[in-house]
C-alpha cells in the first residue's frame, strides 16, 4: 500500500532461514474446499488445519486464528509490514503478539487462510506446526546474545532445533503439543515450565572449555501444572540433538494418546516418576546415538550477525521529550555490549494495530544496529542494539505512534490470554482485564515503583493457563460465580508464582469477582507497603509469606485472605448491576464455551 512506496532505504537485512514452503498454501485451499463439500470428515480436517497453524475460533466454524511461528522470536522489518497488510486484508486490522513469540491474526475467514499462507511465503514465514500435536514455536529469550548474565548466545541452537523439527516426520503426530524454550539466563527465560527448557552452560572437560546446556524436562502449565526436572549436570552441545530426539521418541511411544486431558509429556513424567523417566531418556539417547545409519547433526549457523548502527537519525531538538526518564527506567535494558540497549515495546495484552506494526518496522530500520527485532515472552517486542545516543530520538518516534507505553519491564505489563475475544474455552474476558489492570497501573504510576518491578501479573480466561497465571506473582484464572440467581465472572487468584531458578506454582488464595480484581491487587500492594522490610520487594514479601518465613502482621495466605475478604462479597444486583457484567460487555454474564482444540 502507500507505505510500500517510500523512498528507498538501504535494503533490509534478510533472515538466514526461510521457514516457508509455498505449495502448502495451495494444498490448504484445496483441502478447505473438500471439507466444505463434505468430502473430508471434520476430525481429519481439524487435525490438518491445526498442523498448518490455523486454530478454531469462539463459537463458529467460519473463522480461524492464524498463528505465525517466529522461531527464536526473530522478526524482520519487512515481515512486520507484511503482517500489517495481512491484518488489514484478512483480519481485524490488529495483530497479536503471543506469550510464545508467535504473531497471531484472529477472526480470519477459513477460506482466506491460504491467501495468508501464500503471502507469508513471500517473506519467508510459516504458520506450519504452530498449533496441533507438533513441536510448537521454539522460543529463545529476547535477550539471548545481549544479556549481561548469559554464558553464551543460545539463539543459533534454538534456530537449529526449530529447523530440524519443522516438517520432520517424527513430529507430525505426537500424542500432544511439545514445547522447547531456550534462555540466556534464569531470570529472562521460562525453562522450567515447558517440555524441554535449556540454559546455556560452559564446563571444563579434559582441560577444554565445552559449550552445553542445563536441560529441564517435563515442565508445563495447564489444567494441572508441573515444574521441570534437570536431566543431568551438563549436556554438551553435541548431545543437544540426540537428547531432544530421545525425549521426543519416548513421548511419542509412551505418551497418553487416549486421555486428552492428560496427554502432555509432563503427565507421563509425573506418572512414571522422574528417576525412571530420566533413566529412560539417558538410555534412549544412547540408542539414538548408536543406531544412526547416517550421522545426523544440527545445522548450527554461528556466523556473527553484522552490527552496524544505522546512520544517525537527525535529532536537532536536543531537548529531552516529556516522560523520557520514566520510559527509559521501565522499558530499557542495558546490554552486555557497551553503549547498546535493548528497548522493550509494551503492548496492551499483545495487541498492535497495522499502522503501529509499520512504525515498528521503520523504527527497527532507523535504530537497531542488528536490523531485526525479537518477540518477547510477555506479549511484547524487543528492539535491540539501540545506541545510547539514539534513545531520546527513538522515544519520540515511539510516542508518535502510541508505542511508548511505560512499564514494559515492570509489574504494570500484565499478560492476558485471548479469553472470550476469540477462544472457545474461555469463560471470561481475561484479555480485556489485563488491559484494564495495565491502564490502572500506569495511571497510578506504579510502573515507577521499584518495589514492584520484579513482580508480575498474569491472567488466563479459564484454568488452562495460556495466560501463565500460575507463575505470576499475582495470577488469575477465570470462571463463573453465582449470587442469588445471577452469575458474575469470578477469578481464582494465586500468589507467589515464579519461573526463575526458584520456580514454583502460585498458591491459590481466593476467588475474586472480576470487578474487584483491581481493588484487590491494590489492596495487596497496600498491605505490602505497610509491612515491608527495608530494601524489600513485593515478590520477595509474597515469597516469604508463601514459604512461612514472614514475621510481620501479615504472615500467611490466610491473613491476606482476611484483609481482602470485604471485596469478595457480591452486592445485590439492583445495587450494582455492573458487578454482574464482564469487561467489554453490557449484558449480564453467563458462561458459554465451545470445544477446545488444544488436544485435537
Amino acid at each position, binding site marked *: 500500500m502507500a507505505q510500500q512506496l517510500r523512498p528507498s532505504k538501504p535494503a533490509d537485512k534478510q533472515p538466514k532461514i526461510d521457514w516457508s514452503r509455498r505449495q502448502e498454501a495451495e494444498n490448504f485451499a484445496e483441502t478447505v474446499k473438500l471439507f466444505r463439500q463434505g468430502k473430508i470428515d471434520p476430525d481429519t480436517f481439524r487435525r490438518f488445519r491445526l498442523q498448518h497453524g490455523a486454530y478454531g475460533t469462539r463459537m463458529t466454524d467460519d473463522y480461524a486464528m492464524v498463528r505465525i511461528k517466529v522461531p527464536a522470536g526473530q522478526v524482520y522489518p519487512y515481515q512486520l509490514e507484511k503482517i500489517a497488510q495481512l491484518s488489514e486484508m484478512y483480519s481485524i486490522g490488529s495483530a497479536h503478539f503471543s506469550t510464545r513469540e508467535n504473531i497471531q491474526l484472529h477472526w480470519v475467514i477459513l*477460506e482466506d487462510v491460504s491467501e495468508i499462507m501464500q503471502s507469508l511465503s513471500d517473506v519467508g514465514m510459516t504458520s506450519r506446526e504452530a498449533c496441533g500435536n507438533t513441536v510448537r514455536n521454539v522460543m529463545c529469550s529476547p535477550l539471548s546474545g545481549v544479556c549481561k548474565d548469559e554464558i553464551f548466545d543460545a539463539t543459533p541452537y534454538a534456530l537449529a532445533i526449530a529447523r530440524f523439527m519443522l516438517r520432520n516426520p517424527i513430529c507430525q503426530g505426537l500424542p500432544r503439543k511439545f514445547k522447547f524454550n531456550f534462555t540466556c539466563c534464569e531470570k529472562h527465560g521460562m525453562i522450567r515450565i515447558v517440555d524441554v527448557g535449556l540454559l546455556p552452560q560452559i564446563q571444563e572437560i579434559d582441560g577444554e572449555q565445552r559449550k552445553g546446556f542445563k536441560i529441564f524436562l517435563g515442565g508445563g502449565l495447564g489444567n494441572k501444572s508441573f515444574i521441570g526436572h534437570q536431566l543431568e549436570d551438563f549436556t554438551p552441545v553435541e548431545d543437544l540433538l540426540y537428547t531432544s530426539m530421545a525425549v521426543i521418541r519416548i513421548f511419542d511411544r509412551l505418551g497418553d494418546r487416549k486421555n486428552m486431558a492428560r496427554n502432555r509429556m509432563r503427565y507421563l513424567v509425573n506418572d512414571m516418576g522422574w528417576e525412571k523417566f530420566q533413566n529412560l531418556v539417558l538410555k534412549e539417547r544412547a540408542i539414538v546415538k548408536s543406531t544412526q545409519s547416517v550421522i545426523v547433526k544440527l545445522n548450527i549457523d554461528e556466523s556473527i550477525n553484522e552490527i552496524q548502527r544505522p546512520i544517525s537519525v537527525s535529532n536537532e531538538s536536543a531537548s529531552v521529550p516529556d516522560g523520557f526518564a520514566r520510559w527509559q527506567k521501565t522499558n530499557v535494558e542495558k546490554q552486555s555490549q557497551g553503549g547498546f540497549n535493548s528497548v522493550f515495546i509494551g503492548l496492551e495484552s499483545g*495487541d498492535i494495530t497495522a499502522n503501529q506494526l509499520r512504525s515498528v518496522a521503520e523504527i527497527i530500520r532507523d535504530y537497531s544496529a542488528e536490523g531485526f527485532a525479537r518477540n518477547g515472552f510477555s506479549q511484547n517486542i524487543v528492539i535491540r542494539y539501540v545506541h545510547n545516543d539514539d534513545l531520546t530520538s527513538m522515544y519520540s518516534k515511539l510516542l508518535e505512534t502510541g508505542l511508548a507505553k511505560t512499564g514494559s519491564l515492570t509489574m504494570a505489563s500484565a499478560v492476558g490470554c485471548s479469553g472470550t475475544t476469540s477462544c472457545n474455552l474461555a469463560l471470561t474476558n481475561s484479555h480485556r482485564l489485563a488491559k484494564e489492570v495495565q491502564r490502572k497501573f500506569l495511571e497510578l504510576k506504579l510502573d515507577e515503583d521499584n518495589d514492584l518491578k520484579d513482580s508480575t501479573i498474569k491472567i488466563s480466561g479459564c484454568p488452562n493457563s495460556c495466560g501463565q497465571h500460575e507463575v505470576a506473582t499475582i495470577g488469575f484464572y477465570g470462571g463463573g460465580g453465582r449470587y442469588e440467581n445471577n452469575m458474575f465472572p469470578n477469578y481464582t487468584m494465586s500468589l507467589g508464582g515464579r519461573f526463575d531458578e526458584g520456580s514454583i506454582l502460585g498458591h491459590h488464595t481466593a476467588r475474586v469477582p472480576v470487578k474487584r480484581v483491581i481493588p484487590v491487587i491494590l489492596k495487596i500492594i497496600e498491605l505490602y507497603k505497610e509491612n515491608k522490610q527495608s530494601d524489600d520487594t513485593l515478590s520477595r514479601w509474597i515469597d516469604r509469606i508463601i514459604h512461612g518465613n514472614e514475621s510481620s502482621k501479615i504472615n500467611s495466605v490466610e491473613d491476606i485472605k482476611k484483609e481482602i475478604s470485604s471485596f469478595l462479597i457480591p452486592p445485590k444486583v439492583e445495587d450494582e448491576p455492573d458487578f454482574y457484567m464482564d469487561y467489554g460487555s453490557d449484558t449480564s454474564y453467563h458462561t458459554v464455551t465451545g470445544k477446545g482444540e488444544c488436544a485435537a
Partner: protein
Amino acid sequence: MCCMNNSNMPIIDSKILREKIKDNLIRIVDVRREQDYQLGHITNAVNLPLAKLLADDSVESIQKIAQDFGISDETSVVIYDDTFGALSSRVVWALQYIGHKDAKLLDVTFSQWKTLGYEISTEVPEIESATHSIKENKEIMATAEYLEKVKENKNVIIIDNRERLNYLEQHIPGAINIPYRTLATDGKILRTKEGMKNLLKNRGISEDAEIITYCGSVGTLSGLAYYALKSVGLSNVKLYVHSFKEWKSLEKPIDKQENANYWDLSAE
C-alpha cells in the same frame, strides 16, 4: 476520439495516463476535497468532491456534473482519489448509472502518484461543457427493497465490504464479508485480475452469481468492490448504494456474531 476502452484493462496504468494527459483527449476527475485539489492535482484534472455528487444523487444531477466537466457519452474518463479508490469508484458507478460506458479508475492513489514522482499541477483546466444523454442503467443498482426480495435466492451473494470488526458486530443476514482492504495489493488500488479471481474461487463465488455489494453508508467501500468485481468480468454486480446506514434506519433484520468480545482484541 482516442479509445482507452480496452475491456481487458480494468484500471488505467499510471504510466499510460501520463501519455494520455498530453493528448488532452480524456477527462481526468480528482475526487478529493477542494482545498486538497488546489494544492496540486494531476495535470488537467477537474475537481469533483464526493460531497458534491452525494448532495443530489438524481440522474439529472449526475448528468449535469458530467456535462459541466465536458463529459459526453463518448468521453474517456479517468478518476482518482486519495482514499484507496473508494471515492472514485463511487463516481464511476454514478456515471455508469446514467449510461456512461468509458469511466475507469487510475491504478494508484494521488499520494502514490506523487511518490512515483509524476507531474502535478495547480492549474485549473478550462473546460467546455458537453452534452450527455441519460440511459438509466438500473441493473447496477440495488435498493433495500430489492435486496430483501432476492436475498434468499441461491444465486445471490451479498458482500459486506466494511472492516471485519464492523461486520462481526452487525451485518445484513446472509451477507459475507470481504473487507475493502482485501481488494488492494502492494502499491495498487486493486489486486491483479488473477489475484482477485483466486480470492473469489477460494470463497466459492461463481462468475455467474448475482452480487450485491454494500458498506457503511454511501456506497464508497462497496463501490470499490463493485468496480473490482466488474473489472474481472463478473457481469451481474449491483451496488446497494445507500448501504447499511439505510438498512438500519429502515429497521430491517440484522445479524451479529454472538458470544465473543472481538472488539477487545483490537489495539485501536
